[in-house]
């Protein structure tokens, strides 16, 4: 040790500086009785100079429990008795609950007296303790979380783990810490341990393996969500990997169940719709065919019947009506011979309206509006003409061929809110509206408009297949048909045509 150079300060200056820095000091005899206390020492310890030789030493004069005071006494004897400097923390009980922490130094003097120096470090020490407690809480939380937490070295040695996954293989954290994952976890857990460590060490980046379906080992059949995160040293080398795995088996199973259920519902709805359709078709055809057969039998029995021409004509009428229904049914179950493609919806609509106008009486007028003359959509041209003619005819009939039919084309529409699309699509729609001034219809009728064989037209005028055919054609291109009854009366039919080919 080199000798310190002589201080330019005198003792008074030094004492004043220590006091201002809140470092207190005192002088005791060799037994620890206080002979002198600085003001800061008095303030911090609430002690003062001893008044008699019988007074207790300073270290017995607080409210600390007696074992602590006894250990202070033996420390004092050990150090001071051997003439040694002591340095350490004094835990000073001002009262039972008011505890201060002093960094203390006691320096024996040649004359047997002792200098005490104390420095109040309570705030710093308590802050450190809070931090330590927080670390402990965090660890406890990690251990108790319903997920697996594992910390590995880059060589896939297990540094820290909770028991969450280990209980599946009948082990605890204690059994595997400081072992290599390959050795202690076995093959079945590779997807949640060293496979992840290897990948993270190789790339140096976090990985999210998504949901991993475990095929082998004690977790076979389970689904885990796995995250791996590198822990870097200062040099940016990976020196550890944190792997967090969450058991998602239940939610995956639930989801699979949901998909299966939706599929089953969809199938049963399809079967139900088919049943309804077959039932309706049978009803229509049997009502047509029954008279046909009955008149044929009459003719066979009495070929010379006076009414034979009438019977034959009834047979013809019933057979042709049945044929008409069959033809329309086939249109509904259309084949893909003419595929839909991009075409100018404006041109087709414009031409169809012109055709309708040519056939319509003068009492009927058509009001066509479109902001553009080039409107490209995905449809089948011939079918679109059929759809529009059908809607224009319905409108004309609803208005008893008198008044104004409004036709409107709008582009860049979102998918119709009221209609379920066959496949929800990522495209905008062209919306053609045909709006009539007829009587409109009740909500009961509205709900059945697209049912096969449902008709509001009297007698022989409708087969009840017009709108179902319209719907069948439009949905075939990935579009939709909807209907509403505007406040001002009448009815509005909307054809939604996808702007792009449905995926």
């Amino acid at each position: 040790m080199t000798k310190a150079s002589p201080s330019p300060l005198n003792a008074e200056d030094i004492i004043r500086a220590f006091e201002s820095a809140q470092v207190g000091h005192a002088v005791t005899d060799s037994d620890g009785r206080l002979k002198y206390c600085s003001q800061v020492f008095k303030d911090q310890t609430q002690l003062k100079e001893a008044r008699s030789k019988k007074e207790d030493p300073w270290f017995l004069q607080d409210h600390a429990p007696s074992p602590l005071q006894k250990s202070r006494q033996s420390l004092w004897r050990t150090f001071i008795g051997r003439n040694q400097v002591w340095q350490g923390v004094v835990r000073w009980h001002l009262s039972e609950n008011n505890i201060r922490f002093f960094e203390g130094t006691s320096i024996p003097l040649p004359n047997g007296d002792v200098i005490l120096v104390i420095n109040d470090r309570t705030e710093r020490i308590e802050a450190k303790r809070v931090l330590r407690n927080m670390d402990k809480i965090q660890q406890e939380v990690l251990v108790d979380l319903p997920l697996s937490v594992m910390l590995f070295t880059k060589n896939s040695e297990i540094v820290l783990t909770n028991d969450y996954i280990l209980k599946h293989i009948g082990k605890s954290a204690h059994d595997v810490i400081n072992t290599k994952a390959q050795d202690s976890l076995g093959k079945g857990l590779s997807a949640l341990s060293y496979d992840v460590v290897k990948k993270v060490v190789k790339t140096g980046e976090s990985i999210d393996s998504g949901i991993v379906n475990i095929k082998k080992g004690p977790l076979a059949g389970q689904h885990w969500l796995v995250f791996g995160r590198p822990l870097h040293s200062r040099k940016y080398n990976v020196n550890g990997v944190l792997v967090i795995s969450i058991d998602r088996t239940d939610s995956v199973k639930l989801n699979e169940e949901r998909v299966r259920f939706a599929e089953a519902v969809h199938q049963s709805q399809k079967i139900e719709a088919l049943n309804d359709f077959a039932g309706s078709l049978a009803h229509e055809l049997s009502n047509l065919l029954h008279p046909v057969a009955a008149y044929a039998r009459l003719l066979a029995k009495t070929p010379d019947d006076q009414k034979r021409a009438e019977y034959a004509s009834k047979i013809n009428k019933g057979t042709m009506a049945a044929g008409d229904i069959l033809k329309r049914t086939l249109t509904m179950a259309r084949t893909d011979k003419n595929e839909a493609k991009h075409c100018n919806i404006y041109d087709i609509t414009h031409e169809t309206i012109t055709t309708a106008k040519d056939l319509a009486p003068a009492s009927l007028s058509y009001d066509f509006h479109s902001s553009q003359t080039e409107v490209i959509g995905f449809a089948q041209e011939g079918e679109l003409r059929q759809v529009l003619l059908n809607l224009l005819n319905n409108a004309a009939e609803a208005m008893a061929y008198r008044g104004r039919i409004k036709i409107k084309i709008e582009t860049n529409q979102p998918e119709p809110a009221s209609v379920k699309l066959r496949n929800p699509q990522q495209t905008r729609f062209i919306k053609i509206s045909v709006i009539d001034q007829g009587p409109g219809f009740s909500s009961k009728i509205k709900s059945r408009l697209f049912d096969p064989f449902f008709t509001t037209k009297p007698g022989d005028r409708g087969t009840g297949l017009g709108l179902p055919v319209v719907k069948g054609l439009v949905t075939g291109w990935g579009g939709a048909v909807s209907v509403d009854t505007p406040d001002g009366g009448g009815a509005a039919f909307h054809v939604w045509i996808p702007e792009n080919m449905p995926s």
Partner: protein
Amino acid sequence: MANILIVDDDSAVADVIALVLEQADYTALTTSTIGEAKAHIERGDVAGALIDVWLQDEDGLSLAAHLAEKDPTFPFIIMSGGGPGRSLETVTARADSFGAHHVLYKPFDDDELLSAVEKIAKVKQI
């Protein structure tokens, strides 16, 4: 011979059944609604009825249910040609449960019609 009521909203069917019955010396009345049918039955105009299941906005089986409750001795035959969600089995089962004497599936032949009508025509005579 007995007077038979035909309840069918399809007039082509009702007319030809009436014609076949008349040629076999029955008399026939036709109607397309349940209300009218009930009125004829309550007045005692008819000896029995042929009832179609799927009527416009009405269910012929509800007339059968009404008869089973109010007039269990009145004899009737159910006719069916199908309809949405109606299998032949369910129609037959329900018709049987209301005490129908016979179930005819359209198109049916004249002999089957006449032998079924013969059965219900006898009920009132006994």
